[in-house]
Every structure is written in structure tokens, then in C-alpha cells.
């Protein structure tokens, strides 16, 4: 498959009064055409900052891309100017935000918010753009689009606003769509509709999607591949089956175990991950997760773990995969999920030294 986006060793930091916050600390991944990559992690893990860096939407200053490359079709966008970025935003890459209540302009008609991008990027005439807007609203499943196009956001319900946002994002046929928690503010039934809509549109338009969420149920529903982020780094990455049926990183175990499953026992406690994420002004020495990790080895407090490869597509950043590491059993709730996957290598291969 063709690569649309390559991120190499991306580092993003923010200058604050308390010091420099290293929000993203060396993130690398690829995204193929027509693929959905889900990024999961807690708030503050750097998932939103990573995605906003791809569109260069982080405020600079205080934000700063301190290293790495973002290659869109082989072209590095990190050094691009604001003017050049305007040509990319909305046309090549567009974004759906979490909160449809605050990310639409309340003083502009929905139709004008859709046509704005069309007129700017595709030099469409006003009338053509309006017709296209109606067509887009119909595509995202809004009834009576001819009437809706002239309405304001406050006349739409939450789910309808999110559909309108998707219509705006798709207006110029972008190659990459970044969805930052697009369904978190919605009810489950509406969420299910929006997810179905996104999958349907993706198959029609062959768009690649980066889907940011912390809901593992949603991940299982939409993703082809999954990247798990913790404290500004990708700690595990693999296909959706590899992450859910053969997770290797203790943080992924923790996430999976902390969700109640349908057949989980009521009297037993949930396996919560103790503590809170580390402060990224002074990232801890060694593995950032070590302090919350009941599987932490002595070396985790000393040296950052390297990346190990478990299959063609599966990577995990933990010392537990080192040949000298003791054999450990994942928590009960995770053990129940584990299956033998055919693509797994005989032995994990070390691919990148930790720093």
C-alpha cells in the first residue's frame, strides 16, 4: 500500500512558566492510503498535540516542533510557512473536532461554513459551491439539506452539528482526515451513526483517517491499526487484532483490564492503573510508565526501554520483551483475550535502542 503520511521522530514542546513541557517525545509512524489509524491514550499523553502538529495548528509560540519530520506524500511540512499551510489545510488534510458545539461559528450559516473552503481552495463560484454544500449535507445524512444549508448551528442538534462538521471537513476531498474525539460528546446511539457514516464515506472516497479517542470500544469498531500513546511516546503499535488479542505492553494491558467486560464479575474490583500520568516538564528517568507499572523491572527506572518488533506490523516499547527479562503473566482480564496470531515472529526483535 502507498504511504500517505510518514512521521519521523516528531518532538513537540511548549514553553510555560513552569519550564519546557515535552508533550511529544519522539513519535514515528506511517499512514497508508485508505487506512484508519486510531491513537489512544489518556489526556495529556500527547495524542491531540501529535495530530494538531500534523496540521500545524499548535500555537507557536508557546508551542514548538523541536525535532523530526512530517512527510505528507514525501514532502516535509515542518518548515512550511503559514501561507503555504493554508493551501494544505482543508484541502489535503482536514480535521473534525471533539466538540461540535464550540467548533462551529455561531454567527455563520452552516452552508457558508461549508462553502468557505470550496471557494478558497477550488475557486468555485458561489452558486456551484452552494450546490456542492447541499450535496455534502445530503451525503452525511442530513434531511432536507436545501433548507438546512441556510440555518445556523444553534438550530442543529449535537449529532447533526457533528455531521455538519464532517461535511465541512470533507468539502474539498481531503486525502487525510484527522478526527479528534469526534464522538466523545455524543450519545451512544448517535455515536454509532456517526461511526457508520465515517466508515461509509471512507470506503467511497478512499480517505485516510487518524482517529483519536480514549474509548477502546470505538477503537475496536473503526481502526485498522492502533497506536497506544503514553507520556508523549508511542508505547505499542499494531493492527487492531494484535492490540486487542495479543497486547504486549503493560500499559496496554492496564487499559484493557480497567474496562469492565460484558462477562466480568461484579464482586471483583476493576484492575485500575494506580496513580496519575507523569509531569512532562521533567519526564522521569527510564520508562515514564514505570512508577505506575506493577510489572516494572529494575532497569525500567534506569534506562528507557527500546522498541521491539513482535510481527511485521506489531511494535512495543518495553523491557519485558528483552530476552533476559523474566517471564510475566498479564492480568487475568487480559489473559482471557489472548489468542495465537499467525503473523507473530518466533522471538521479538529489537529494532530501536532507547535513548
Amino acid at each position, binding site marked *: 500500500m502507498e504511504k500517505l503520511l510518514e512521521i519521523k521522530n516528531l518532538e513537540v514542546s511548549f514553553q510555560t512558566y513552569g519550564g519546557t513541557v515535552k508533550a511529544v517525545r519522539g513519535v514515528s509512524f506511517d499512514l497508508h492510503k485508505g487506512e484508519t489509524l486510531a491513537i489512544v491514550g*489518556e*489526556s495529556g499523553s500527547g495524542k491531540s498535540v501529535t495530530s494538531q502538529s500534523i496540521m500545524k495548528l499548535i500555537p507557536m509560540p508557546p508551542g514548538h516542533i523541536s525535532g523530526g519530520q512530517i512527510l505528507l506524500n514525501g514532502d516535509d511540512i515542518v518548515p512550511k510557512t503559514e501561507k503555504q499551510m493554508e493551501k494544505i489545510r482543508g484541502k489535503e488534510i482536514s480535521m473534525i473536532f471533539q466538540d461540535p458545539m464550540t467548533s462551529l461559528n455561531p454567527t455563520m450559516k452552516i452552508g457558508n461554513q461549508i462553502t468557505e473552503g470550496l471557494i478558497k481552495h477550488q475557486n468555485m463560484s458561489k452558486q456551484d459551491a452552494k450546490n456542492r454544500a447541499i450535496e455534502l449535507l445530503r451525503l452525511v445524512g442530513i434531511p432536507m439539506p436545501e433548507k438546512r444549508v441556510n440555518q445556523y448551528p444553534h438550530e442543529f442538534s*449535537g449529532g447533526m452539528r457533528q455531521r455538519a462538521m464532517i461535511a465541512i471537513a470533507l468539502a474539498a476531498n481531503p486525502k487525510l482526515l484527522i478526527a479528534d474525539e469526534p464522538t466523545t460528546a455524543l*450519545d*451512544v*446511539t*448517535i*455515536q*454509532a451513526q456517526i*461511526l*457508520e457514516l465515517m466508515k461509509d464515506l471512507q470506503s467511497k472516497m478512499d480517505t485516510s483517517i487518524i482517529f483519536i479517542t*480514549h*474509548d*477502546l*470500544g*470505538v*477503537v*475496536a*469498531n473503526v481502526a485498522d491499526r492502533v497506536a497506544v500513546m503514553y507520556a508523549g511516546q508511542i508505547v505499542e503499535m499494531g493492527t*487492531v*487484532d494484535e492490540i*486487542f*488479542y495479543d497486547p504486549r505492553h503493560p500499559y496496554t494491558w*492496564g*487499559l*484493557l483490564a*480497567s*474496562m*469492565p*467486560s*460484558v462477562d*466480568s464479575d*461484579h464482586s471483583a*474490583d*476493576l*484492575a*485500575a*492503573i*494506580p496513580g*496519575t500520568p507523569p509531569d512532562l516538564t521533567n519526564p522521569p528517568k527510564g520508562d515514564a510508565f514505570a512508577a505506575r507499572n506493577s510489572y516494572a523491572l529494575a532497569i525500567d527506572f534506569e534506562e528507557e526501554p527500546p522498541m521491539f518488533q513482535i510481527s511485521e506490523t506489531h511494535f512495543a516499547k518495553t523491557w519485558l520483551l528483552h530476552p533476559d527479562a523474566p517471564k510475566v503473566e498479564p492480568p487475568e482480564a487480559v489473559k482471557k*483475550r489472548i489468542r495465537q496470531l499467525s503473523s507473530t515472529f518466533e522471538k521479538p526483535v529489537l529494532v530501536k535502542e532507547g535513548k
Partner: protein
Amino acid sequence: MSEKLLEIKNLKQHFNVGRPNMIKAVDGITFDIYKGETLGLVGESGCGKSTTGRTIIRLYDATDGQVLFEGEDVHGKKSAKELKKFNRKMQMIFQDPYASLNPRMTVADIIAEGIDIHGLAKSKKERMERVYELLETVGLNKEHANRYPHEFSGGQRQRIGIARALAVDPDFIIADEPISALDVSIQAQVVNLMKKLQREKGLTYLFIAHDLSMVKYISDRIGVMYFGKLVELAPAEDLYNNPMHLYTQSLLSAIPLPDPETERSRRRKSYDPAVHNYAENENLEMREITPGHFVYCSDKEYEQLKVQYSN
């Protein structure tokens, strides 16, 4: 089942009564809450589940109906003294741990507010000891007492909210989406804490949420609300295994589960209230189909469900 702690009888909460934009947020619901149990209340936003919680604790005055707490009506006319007695027994934990703590008060003052109002501490020393004890109960420590809410993370603030609710030794706690604003790994911490407190203090919970998998985990029984009405009420397991009302079935079919294989084969059901095709004068009410499993239905549907599930 043990004795009833709370009986809610035909409770109605209408807003803008008499005006054209009248909203029937809660429209005649009836259920009981037993001592020591957790009753989950689920439904989409706007279905009236939070309004139900707030009306029970009398943050709103009910339009009609009764809320009986240990046999006494909460909404009957009451002197300030009598109301205070209720407020000690019933407490609430709110959804947003950022908005529900006063930013200008220290944690100690937030937690001790109830203690002060009800005069539960005889001296300053006793008051602080009680605060320290509560902080420890919810997994925080003494040093936190003199800090302000902004110095805490979301999970910690929710713990402060729980400590505040516990300060007056209540019997019954209404938790209105207590974990919705928290991260997954922190949600489990707060849920475990709530379960631990229930075991130790014999608390009764009304747990309002829209995250159905968490509700199932924490609840003994679950009520499903739709447009101001309770449409189904059943033991948690039973509701998930045998959802009877069409709306419950549609709601359950929409929850994404953390399992890629089931997700790939997911069949979502949609719910259209028109399928019931109720006649105007039909007698709609909650009826018991199997022991403990109630469904809001008409006479005709009752007969059908009875046949369908009576094996």
C-alpha cells in the same frame, strides 16, 4: 430483597408549566430503591435521568408525585430543621469535578462545609481530624487539606467531591455521571472507590450515567429512561441478557465493545417509537414480565412479552 429505602411514586418534573414551551422532563416515573443496592439509571442526553436525580434530592421541586425516603415525603412542606435532617441522609456527587468545587475554598473547607452546617464537630480539632479521616478514606492525604481545587487532577477532584458527600454520614448518594469526565484508567479507580465505600458503610447509590458497560458493572438493578419515562427496569445481568423493550435493545446494540471481532459483525438496531402504534386510550404502565423485570408496555404487548419470555 431487603427493605425499601426510597419510593418514587409517579414523579413528574415539568418546566415552563403553562407556557407553550412546556417540557415534560420527567413524566410520571415510579420505582423503589432498596437499602444497600446500587440502582443504575441510563438513557440518552435529554431523557430526564439527571432531572430525576435532582428532583429526588429536591434541587428541583417536583411538579407532581411523591418521593418517600424511609416512608417520609421529601417534597412535603417542611421546616428548615426537618429539611436539614434529609440533607444529612441524602448527598450528591456531581458530573464535572472542575465546576462542582468552589475554587476559592480550600479542600478542608469544602469537605467540612457539611460538618459545619450540621454542627457535627464540637471543636476545631475534631473538625480537622474528621477532614483528615475523610481524605484518607477516599485515597488522598492530610497534606491535601490546605490546597485549592485547581491544584488537583480530575480524578483527585472527584475524590474530593466524594469526601464532601461522605462528610455528613449519608445513607443514600446520588451520583450524577461521576466518571464521565475522567480518563479510562482513572474511571476504574473512582468506581473501585465507590464500591469499597459501599461495602464498608452500607451506602445506597443511585448511579446515573450513559456509559452502559460501567453501569452494568457497578449496578445491581438498572432502569432505562426514554423521553422522561422509565421504559425498562431489571436486574443488571437480566437487562443485558434479555432486553425486552425495543428501545433498550437498540441502546444495547449501539455500545461499541473492546473486541474487534464482535465489532466487525455488529448489527445495530434502530428504534422508532412509532412501531408501538399505541391507541390513544391504551393503558400504558410498567408491568412485571419475569420476576423483577419490568417493562413499560400496553396490555397487548404485555401478553406478547409474557408468552415470549415465559420459559
